[in-house]
């Protein structure tokens, strides 16, 4: 029993650690890849805010799938779920409305 538990603790810590290492190395490899493309400004544009914030949990849906009014409701729903700041909410909504 005890050895089993120890093995488990081991597997769990190891998989946690592996995840962390994976994430850190992916982040590092991503930021070096992105460095070349990035412009000087740190400010993200609306489409970058949309792509980076709305693909975290599920695939991005095309702006054309909903009407302006429907997007207003969906984005308000996502503001809470996805912890958007009011500014992100406004920019994303504007982008979705312009693109549908």
């Amino acid at each position, binding site marked *: *029993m005890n050895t*089993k*538990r120890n093995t*488990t603790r081991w*597997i*769990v810590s190891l*998989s*946690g650690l*592996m*995840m*962390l290492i*994976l*994430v850190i190395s*992916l*982040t590092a*490899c*991503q930021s070096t*890849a992105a460095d070349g493309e990035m412009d000087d400004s*740190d400010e*993200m544009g609306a489409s970058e805010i949309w792509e*980076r*914030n709305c*693909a*975290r*949990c*599920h*695939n*991005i*849906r*095309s702006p054309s799938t*909903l009407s302006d*009014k*429907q997007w*207003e*409701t*969906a984005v*308000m*729903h996502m*503001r*809470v*779920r996805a*912890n*958007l*700041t*009011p500014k992100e909410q406004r920019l994303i909504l504007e982008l979705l409305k312009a693109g549908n």
Partner: protein
Amino acid sequence: MIPAILMIVVFTGSFARAQDSVSREEFDALKASYENLLSRFNNMSTDFDALKEEGSTSELREELEELIEEIEQVDLKAIAGRPGTTGFLAAGFATTGFVDFDDNDSTFGASFTPVFLWKFTDNLMVEAELDLSLGDGTTEVELEYIQILYTVNDYVTVGAGKFLTPFGMFWERLHPSWINKLPDAPLSMRHTGLVPPTTVGVQVRGVIPIDSMKLNYAFFVGNGPSLATEDLDHLGNLEYENFIDNNGNKAFGGRLGFQPFPELEIGYSAYFAKVGSSGSEFRNVDATLHGPYLAYVSPIPALAGSIDVRFEWTWSDVDDASYDLGGTVTPPIVFDNRRSGGYAQVAYRPSLSGVSFLEDLEFVFRFDRIDNAAGHPDAIDRNGYTVGLNYWLEPNSVVKLAFRFDDPEGGEKNDGLMIQWTVGF
């Protein structure tokens, strides 16, 4: 000489005049016909002007009237169909599938999970989700959540009702079948698992931007779980369908999440509750749950695709108690009621490979585990290794094929094949 010249001039002049001149009669006749023509022309041109004027204005007027009538009708229709200020969206998901596990006959299944959203103002909304699934000879309906949300200011939103517990990330962010990358939930996240799927109560939540980073928080109070004291299989487990509180003590907890950049979130959740029914010998039993989570989702050009990494672990510690199952067991069962469990999942989708078939495929691997209380009479620790292959028909529709390799520490193995087709809307 002079008279001769004059003669010549007069002669030639009169000769010339004799050539050009018309008689009075001829002149009068010509004049008359000219005047006749002139008056006819004048008449014609007035007729023409009148005709022109009359014709075009009446046509124009007709067209204008038609147009006005059309506009009035469109206007009426527009007024009749005026959307009102309330925004409404019917969303949700449909799930169909086939499962074949060792411990049960294979079966097809289907469920329908509508989500209704109302946005009343920029601050006030209501969200509701029903879960309609097929039971044994019946259709089961569950009120998965119903929450009124009010945004107090840029940093604070208050929610009340039955809501997905802001503890970890699975229930609130990943449980819909069109989002979950595997057909089933990890062991710790099942309805009989470690984490409370929903809470009936009140929550306060929000997000605080720090430069380009974000800190999100959620705190809640609710009915909390009840303690299973009668059923040997689940003895000492927390039961979350405690919709009408079994005691006056409320559970409380919260979650803090940190996002250094949008693709990464690391967080921790905690939950405290008194779980025994009031008046019972278990009334002082306390439970504590806590655990970390991590999510990293990003396209990685070097891997020609996007990667989705998730890790979530929960520890549950319930005060020891002695369970005699209503006096039927002597001596009473006593055990160290500590449990834990969670999952680690990695998914890879070659979305940047440039090959359209590959771009829609996704490979998933998940390790999940539940570590039950040592000394519990009927609890087996379990590991699971699930591999999945998904094909995305649309961004909101996926066909999943997965195989779960069960690894119980004692007892029977329960491997299984799962196929699922889902659409989110």
